């Protein structure tokens, strides 16, 4: 049995320690907001936070997450009201939407570590998150907007 703390809740799951964390999240804990994209850490669709870092859950073994804090898109905020989530809605960032939970989870680490990022900072942080619909300009715009809202006190 492996002990996981996901979105503030403790779980004890019966899984092979080698199982990718993504499998445990989606198939065992039914947290399907995190997406499977490539399975080889190339696309970023599966990004979740592991002790605050934006790990790719498709290549992170569930044993690595044992005893540590996992946050998925479902747990990023209490009411889907993280500045990034609100900015994503305001700007209507997604097209197909598949990559965006990973995009938002990566952007959340950026804004935590750099509350006022430049375009270059955004590129450096987000270059590992691929969007086949090409929504990159809107992603950048939304991150700037979220940064501005965050500076005003975590809201609009």
């Amino acid at each position, binding site marked *: 049995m492996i002990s996981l703390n996901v979105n503030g809740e403790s779980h004890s799951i019966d899984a092979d320690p080698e199982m990718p964390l993504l499998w445990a999240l989606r198939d065992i804990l039914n947290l399907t907001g995190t997406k499977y994209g490539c399975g080889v850490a190339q696309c970023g669709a599966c*990004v979740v936070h592991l002790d605050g870092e934006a790990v790719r859950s498709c290549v992170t073994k569930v044993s690595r997450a044992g005893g540590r804090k996992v946050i998925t898109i479902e747990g990023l905020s209490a009411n889907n009201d993280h500045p990034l989530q609100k900015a994503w809605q305001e700007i209507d960032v997604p097209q197909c939407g598949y990559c965006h939970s990973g995009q938002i989870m990566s952007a959340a680490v950026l804004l935590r570590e750099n509350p006022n990022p430049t375009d270059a900072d955004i590129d*450096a942080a987000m270059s590992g998150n691929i969007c086949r619909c090409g929504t990159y300009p809107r992603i950048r715009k939304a991150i700037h907007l979220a940064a501005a809202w965050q500076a005003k006190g975590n809201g609009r």
Partner: protein
Amino acid sequence: MKQATLHARKAGVIIALLGVVVVLSSSFRYVPHGSASTRDSAVSAQAFMKVYSVLMSPRCVNCHPAGDVPLQGELSQPHAMSPQRGDDGKGVYAMKCANCHQAVNLPGPHMPPGNPNWHLPPANMKMVFQGKTPRELALQLTNPATNGNKDKKKLLEHADDGLVVGGWNPGEGRALPPLSYAEFKKAWRTWIETGAYAPAK
């Protein structure tokens, strides 16, 4: 006549001495490694050429890039998705090395190789290998100001560093360095213990 001969001899001695100085300065940089009895510039420089063949292989040079993006693959191309070095050499923001690179290699081709200490040299001492000649790299490695503050003891110990040794466990589909680890370590020790001389070029 005698005086003229004496002058000629003195001039000859001076020219010979100058010649020795020129040869030494152009061929080797003396580094106070190894006792006088163990110093051997020829053996040392020869050993370094073996070391160099390993350090310039993809397994080493890929994480000692000239720029701030690591290299990858057998052709040492810039790493896909352009991860940045960061101040500590461990990446930036959502693009930190350990976000993809686990503590161990993952099975299968094209999967991220792993090591518990995966990183590049830090921004304040980049320890670049890419593009360096044998001489340039040897001089860089023997200078604490450019080698990560390593004295002779630490330099010798560096051959046992987990990330260095990890070069011989590169994961599926990646070539090993051109020497075995044992051969590399032997050449590394020989180079340092015989004086850590730099080759001529």
